[in-house]
């Protein structure tokens, strides 16, 4: 069979149309009746007042009692089934532990703050509360190759564990160390046979993670959805204030407007959403 150029082009054209049309027909037949219109936000969920919402925090160090640290950490970690790696040898724990909220001293919290030998000793040695800054311009989101971490419309930097491939680019990108990699199976046991997630502490309404994914604070999105504030803010006795940074009348904005606040590494331009009131006794604030 011989074929001339004209016939060949006709054939190719017809095949292309049939191919494209065929796909549409096939997809139409496969329509399973699941439409986006069938889903909606929970009516109980917390919302900002304006058109734009940006959830943020003020951590008031002057209101934070030493015993509150562990209370907040425990509340967060038990709700979210964060594995407790305190049973591991110190050297291993340092590298492998998973943390959503933790504490560290002034120097490591604000490493780029101007150094001053005369600085208040109490402040220098004070432990600051650290968790994901839910930056307005998050570096982790920019580098994630699978869009497993992304920015929600309400400002939450969310982590989709279904998509995370464990490449750890986000951990390299995050200037705040807010991300932890699951080096071990969080459902596993430590060297002494103790489970990382204690059976009696396990929250059966929240998933765990699996080995090989990166996790971090999710700003308690599951609590926001039912109208509750983040767990750390709830149990902190007012030291951690939660609110909408875009709303000028919110409590966080009022504190930021009336007191001196600092953020971690603002010079990097990620615009963190956690503001620290560093306190410092009766002469400050």
């Amino acid at each position, binding site marked *: 069979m011989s074929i001339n150029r004209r016939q060949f082009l006709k054939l190719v054209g017809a095949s292309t149309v049939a191919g494209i049309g065929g796909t549409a027909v096939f997809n139409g037949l496969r329509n399973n009746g*699941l439409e986006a219109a069938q889903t*909606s*936000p929970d009516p109980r969920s917390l919302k900002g007042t304006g058109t734009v919402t940006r959830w943020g925090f003020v951590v008031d160090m002057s209101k934070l009692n030493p015993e509150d640290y562990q209370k907040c950490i425990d509340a967060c970690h038990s709700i979210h089934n964060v594995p407790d790696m305190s049973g591991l040898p110190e050297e291993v724990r340092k590298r492998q532990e998973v943390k959503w909220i933790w504490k560290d001293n002034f120097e490591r919290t604000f490493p780029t703050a101007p150094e001053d030998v005369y600085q208040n000793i109490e402040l220098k040695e004070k432990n600051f509360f650290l968790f994901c800054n839910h930056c307005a311009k998050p570096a982790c989101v920019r580098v994630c190759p699978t869009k497993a971490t992304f920015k*929600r*419309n309400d400002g939450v930097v969310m982590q989709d564990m279904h998509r995370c491939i464990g490449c750890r680019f986000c951990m390299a990108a995050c200037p705040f160390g807010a991300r932890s990699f699951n080096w071990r199976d969080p459902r596993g046991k430590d060297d002494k046979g103790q489970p990382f997630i204690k059976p009696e502490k*396990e929250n*059966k309404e929240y*998933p765990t993670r699996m080995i090989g994914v990166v996790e971090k604070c999710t700003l308690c999105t599951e609590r926001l959805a039912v109208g509750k504030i983040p767990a750390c803010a709830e149990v902190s006795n007012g030291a951690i204030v939660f609110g909408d940074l875009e709303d000028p009348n919110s409590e966080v904005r009022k504190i930021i407007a009336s007191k001196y606040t600092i953020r971690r590494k603002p010079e990097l331009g990620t615009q963190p959403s956690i503001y620290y009131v560093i306190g410092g006794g009766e002469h400050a604030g």
Partner: protein
Amino acid sequence: MYNSGKIIAGLIVFVLFVTFPFLFNMGKASAKPKPSIDTPVINQMQVKQCVESRDFMRTEHMQLLNSWRDSVVRNGDRIYVNKAGQSISMSLQNTCMNCHSNKKKFCDECHNYMAVTPYCWTCHIQPKENMPKENVL
């Protein structure tokens, strides 16, 4: 036909080889899966109705779960309005498994038969049912 003996013998061997799995398993068909809905929560229901019709759930539950996952995690929408107009909280662990608390007799029944291994349970906590003690977290 040249070499007919070799060719026919070769063809027979080939056909036997290809159909071996079918011949080997003939008459040994494993029982059809019968997913059980015998759980305390379902037994208490007046009308035994899942979030959508039974036929829809049978064929489309994986697409439904995928769209639930995307809706909840990526869009923050947690309420699903089904075809009957009821609002349902989208959650595998808290909504699905609340009724279907018998994962082994419900999920695994068909999944094992079809040799599919969904990786839901590496993260989502499955209901505790007749598990050997050392596996209970």
